[in-house]
C-alpha cells in the first residue's frame, strides 16, 4: 500500500538543541530547549531521537512566557526513548514537534488532579499565571516525587494538596488521590476538573466525580500511556 503523497518528515518534527537536563528526583528528568513558538499551557510535544522513528508525546512543563520549553519525564528502563533522553547533555540535538493539544484550562475555577509526572501540564499552567482560582491535588508513591513542591506550596498554600501512598509526612495526605477525594463530603459540582496521569487514576477519579454529581462535561482528562 502506498501513500498518495510522500512525507519526508514523517512525523513533522524539527531539530532543536538541548539547553538543559536536570534530574530533579531519582529517575525523573526535566529537559529543556529554546522556545521558538508560542504554546498554550497544557499542550504537548512529540519527541524523538530520530525523525524516522515514531515519536513519544510529553506535556510541556514550563510557563508560556519562559524562554525555554521544558519537558518532565521518568526513565522507563525498557523504554525506547527515555533511557536515551535521560543522557542528553546541552548541545545535543533532539527532534520535536510544534506544541499542540486541547488540554487547556479556562478562567473558570477548577481542580487540577495529577499523579506522578502528570503534574507537568498543571505546572505549566501554574507557571503561566493560571493558578489563582485553582486547587492542585498531586498524588505520588514516594515523598521525593512531589516535583516543584516548594514553589507550589509557597504560591498556592492550602490549595496545593499532596497525597502520598507509600510514605508519610506532615501536611501530606496518607493515601492515593482517590482516597483523598472520597473523604471529601461534598465535592463542588459547578467547577471544572482536569485529570492527568495513568489511566487507572483517571478512570477511577472520573467515576467518583460523576457519582458525586459532577457533570461529565466538566471533566477533562489526559492519560499517559
Amino acid at each position, binding site marked *: 500500500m502506498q501513500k498518495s503523497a510522500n512525507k519526508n518528515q514523517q512525523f513533522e518534527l524539527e531539530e532543536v538543541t538541548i539547553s538543559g537536563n536536570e534530574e530533579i528526583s531519582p529517575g525523573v528528568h526535566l529537559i529543556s530547549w529554546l522556545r521558538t513558538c508560542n504554546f498554550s499551557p497544557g499542550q504537548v510535544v512529540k519527541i524523538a531521537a530520530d525523525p524516522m522513528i515514531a515519536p513519544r508525546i510529553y506535556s510541556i512543563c514550563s510557563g508560556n512566557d519562559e524562554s525555554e520549553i521544558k519537558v518532565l519525564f521518568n526513565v522507563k528502563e525498557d523504554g525506547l526513548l527515555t533511557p536515551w533522553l535521560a543522557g542528553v547533555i546541552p548541545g545535543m540535538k533532539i527532534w520535536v514537534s510544534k506544541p499542540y*493539544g486541547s488540554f487547556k484550562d479556562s478562567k473558570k475555577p477548577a481542580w487540577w488532579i495529577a499523579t506522578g509526572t502528570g503534574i507537568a501540564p498543571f505546572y505549566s499552567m501554574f507557571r503561566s499565571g493560571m493558578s489563582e482560582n485553582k486547587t492542585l491535588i498531586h498524588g505520588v508513591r514516594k515523598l521525593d516525587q512531589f516535583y516543584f513542591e516548594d514553589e507550589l506550596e509557597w504560591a498556592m498554600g492550602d490549595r496545593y494538596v499532596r497525597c502520598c501512598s507509600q510514605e508519610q509526612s506532615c501536611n501530606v495526605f496518607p493515601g492515593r488521590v482517590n482516597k483523598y477525594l472520597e473523604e471529601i463530603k461534598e465535592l463542588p459540582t459547578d467547577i471544572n476538573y482536569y485529570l492527568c496521569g495513568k*489511566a487507572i487514576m483517571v478512570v477511577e477519579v*472520573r467515576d467518583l466525580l460523576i457519582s458525586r454529581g459532577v457533570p461529565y462535561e466538566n471533566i477533562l482528562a489526559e*492519560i499517559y500511556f
Partner: protein
Amino acid sequence: MKDSLFGKTLVELTALAVELGLPRFTGKQMAEWLYQKDISSIDEMTNLSKKAREILNSKYEFGLVNSTKVQESVDGTKKYLFPTVQGKFIETAMIPDDDRKTVCVSSQVGCKMGCLFCMTGKQGFQGQLTAGEIVNQIRNIPEWHKVTNIVYMGMGEPFDNLEEVLKSLEILTSEWGLAMSPRRITVSTIGIVPGMVTFLNQSEAHLAVSMHTPFDDERQKLMPVQVAYPLAEVIREIKSWDFGRQRRVSFEYIVFKGLNDSPRHVQELCKILNGIKCRINLIRFHPIPGTPLEGTDENTLQKFKEKLNEKGILTTIRASRGQDIYAACGLLSTKEMVG
C-alpha cells in the same frame, strides 16, 4: 516454565528448529500443525520423528490455552473467557450471522485509554497479550474452521500493542498460518497515529477508527486520547493514503442521546470525511454501570443514518448481538474478576 510454540511465526519456528539441531523444514511442518490442524500437543505432530518430538517437548509446549467459560446468547452469539496473566481474563466473542462467523478478539488485558463509555477501561491496564494469545482466541474455539471474519474490537487498543498485533496478523494471513484473507480482517483503533501508520504499511487488513463525534471538544470528554492524537491528525493521515479498491476504512460511531446525534453532527461528519472513501458504522450504546451517557432512541438513530446516506456517506447500523450474555467488551471479564 516452557516457552510456547503457538504464536511463533514461520521464521521463528525455523530458527528454533535449526537451533535444536532439527532440519530447517521442521519449522514449516510445525507451523502447519500449529495453525492448520486440529491437534493440541507436540506428540500429535506425527510427521516429525519421535526424537524431534522429544527434543521439542523438552524445551517447548504446544501452547494453546483453553477457555474457562463459554456463554451463549439466544441469538447464537458466544462469548469465550480465556485466562491470562495474574488471574485476569480476556474476552472473545463469536458472532454468527447467516453464512458468516465473525470473531471479535482482544489485544490487551484491560486498556490504558480510559474512554468514558467503555467497560474495559474501568479494569485499568493489566498487560499486553502475545501474538499467541491473540491467535489462540480464534484457533482454540470450536468454530475455528468456520470463522469467516475477524475483528480486533475486543478488549484493549490494538495499536498500543502493535508488535504482537502485527505478528498475530502475519500468522492469521500467511499461507503457512491460518491462511485467511486480510480482507476478512478489521483492526479497530481509537487513533494512535504512529501505530496506525505502521499497520497501514505492513498489513493489508481493513482499518476501523473509533470516532464517536466529529467535534474535538466533545471527543476529548469521551476519549482522553484526543489530547495526544487529535481526530484531525488521524483524518489527515488517512487522507494521505490511497486505500485502493479492496481495502476499507470505516469509522465507528456510538450514538449517544443528545450528545452526538444532531444535524450539526451530520454536517460536520460530511465536512471532515470529505475526500475519504469510507463507511460509518453506527453503534447502539448499551449502558455500562455508572455511566452518565444514554443511547439515542431508535427513531433518531434511523434518521441519523438516513441523513448520512443522503449526503453520500455509506452508513450502516451495527446489529446489537448477545446482549443477554454481556457481549459488550469488558463486561463479562470484569464480572468474572470481581466474582
